[in-house]
């Protein structure tokens, strides 16, 4: 317990979280501060490239771990199953339409890579290592949840999901998956000598870049929250906090079953607890245009993302440490 509080306190007072809070506050106060779209996208490319590359180098260093494939499969299973839990929980807590519930469920089965990146930086600050291939697991968990959600819609007969080959390609080859997996493989191939050549670009400035990126995330989340006041009822807000906890619990079980390290368990909990706000929303606009974007974006970006960032991650790290004895 004190462990949790210590981590939470340290986390709360880290420059990253304070930057996020600054962005949130600025947006809620209607400041015109903005990070240009192109700059925010460039920062996210940097973060994805850096984390993928470092993951690949870590795997190259330690040799391909036998658990790599098992972990990938475990992540995919989680991403497939979590939407069902989310869908059911929304049925209990809210009066959302069938389609909205399915769309939200897709988001919570998928993952938020920024939440993942922030968790890796919390682990790094505490000196906890993790499996390098967790970035590959993150990539593998992006898409399966979409299938579950579309299946939930088609089963109900209350809507029509528009899936075509183009959409599948867009989902599976979306920018963050390609960049994450691609840079992971580059890191794997070039290993430590490759890292040495670009270390002062992708390692040292990483946490500072993350600060600016989270500042922008705070601005975007805050603007989203302001624009959608009244969209979410109390039940939905509750869902936005309970669902990550449920996801983290599932991630914990899976992580232990896979025999991951303390850091690996904490990251899998974070992945399961996080909700997508880039890849899945775009897919939903195409496949389920009737679902209300305000609902799913506000939940995933306005509620769950801040919750994970501020309270969730320290909690998951502490629990993973306690359970694995790490």
């Amino acid at each position: 317990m004190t462990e949790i509080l210590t981590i939470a306190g340290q986390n709360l007072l880290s420059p990253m979280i304070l930057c996020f809070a600054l962005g949130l506050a600025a947006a809620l106060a209607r400041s015109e501060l903005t990070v240009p779209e192109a700059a925010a996208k460039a920062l996210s490319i940097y973060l994805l490239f850096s984390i993928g590359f470092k993951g690949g180098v870590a795997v190259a260093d330690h040799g391909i771990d036998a658990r790599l494939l098992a972990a990938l499969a475990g992540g995919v299973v989680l991403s497939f199953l979590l939407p069902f839990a989310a869908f059911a929980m929304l049925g209990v807590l809210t009066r959302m339409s069938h389609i909205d519930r399915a769309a939200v469920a897709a988001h919570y089965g998928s993952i938020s890579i920024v939440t993942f990146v922030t968790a890796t930086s919390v682990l790094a600050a505490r000196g906890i290592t993790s499996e390098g291939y967790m970035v590959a697991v993150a990539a593998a968990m992006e898409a399966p949840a979409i299938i579950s959600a579309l299946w939930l819609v088609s089963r109900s007969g209350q809507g029509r999901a528009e899936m075509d080959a183009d959409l599948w390609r867009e989902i599976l080859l979306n920018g963050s998956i390609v960049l994450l997996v691609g840079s992971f493989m580059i890191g794997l191939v070039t290993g430590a000598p490759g890292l040495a050549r670009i270390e002062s670009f992708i390692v040292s400035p990483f946490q500072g870049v993350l600060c600016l990126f989270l500042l922008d995330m705070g601005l975007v989340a805050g603007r989203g929250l302001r624009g959608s006041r009244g969209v979410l009822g109390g039940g939905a807000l509750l869902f936005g906090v309970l669902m990550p906890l449920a996801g983290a619990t599932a991630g914990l079980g899976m992580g232990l079953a896979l025999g991951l390290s303390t850091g690996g368990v904490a990251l899998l909990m974070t992945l399961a607890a996080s909700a997508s706000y880039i890849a899945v929303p775009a897919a939903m606009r195409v496949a389920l245009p009737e679902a209300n974007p305000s609902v799913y974006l506000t939940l995933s970006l306005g509620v769950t993302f801040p919750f994970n960032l501020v309270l969730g991650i320290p909690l998951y790290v502490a629990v993973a440490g306690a359970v694995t004895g790490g």
Partner: protein
Amino acid sequence: MQTHKARRVEIIIEAPMESRLTAALERAGVTGFTVLPVLGGSGRSGRWTREGQVGRQGMVAVVCLIRPERLDTLLEAAFEVVERHIGVVSVTECEVLRAERF
């Protein structure tokens, strides 16, 4: 100067639908179009700005100059795509130079 009657069709549509719309236009025999960026807007589904967005959400404006007799085919093709999605379609009469291009 010699000008020729034409129609200017402007379709404002969500960015993830852009490639589907332009593919439909091409299938409908449209020979040209231009895509303009959109910063924000407001409509039945509320207000949005590019700054309150992550990823490739947002909208674009597709402008299409076309011979009057082809308008209906174009509108049907566009409507097919736009139907279930947010966005607006407007048609203006216009004149164009170099009719051989349309």
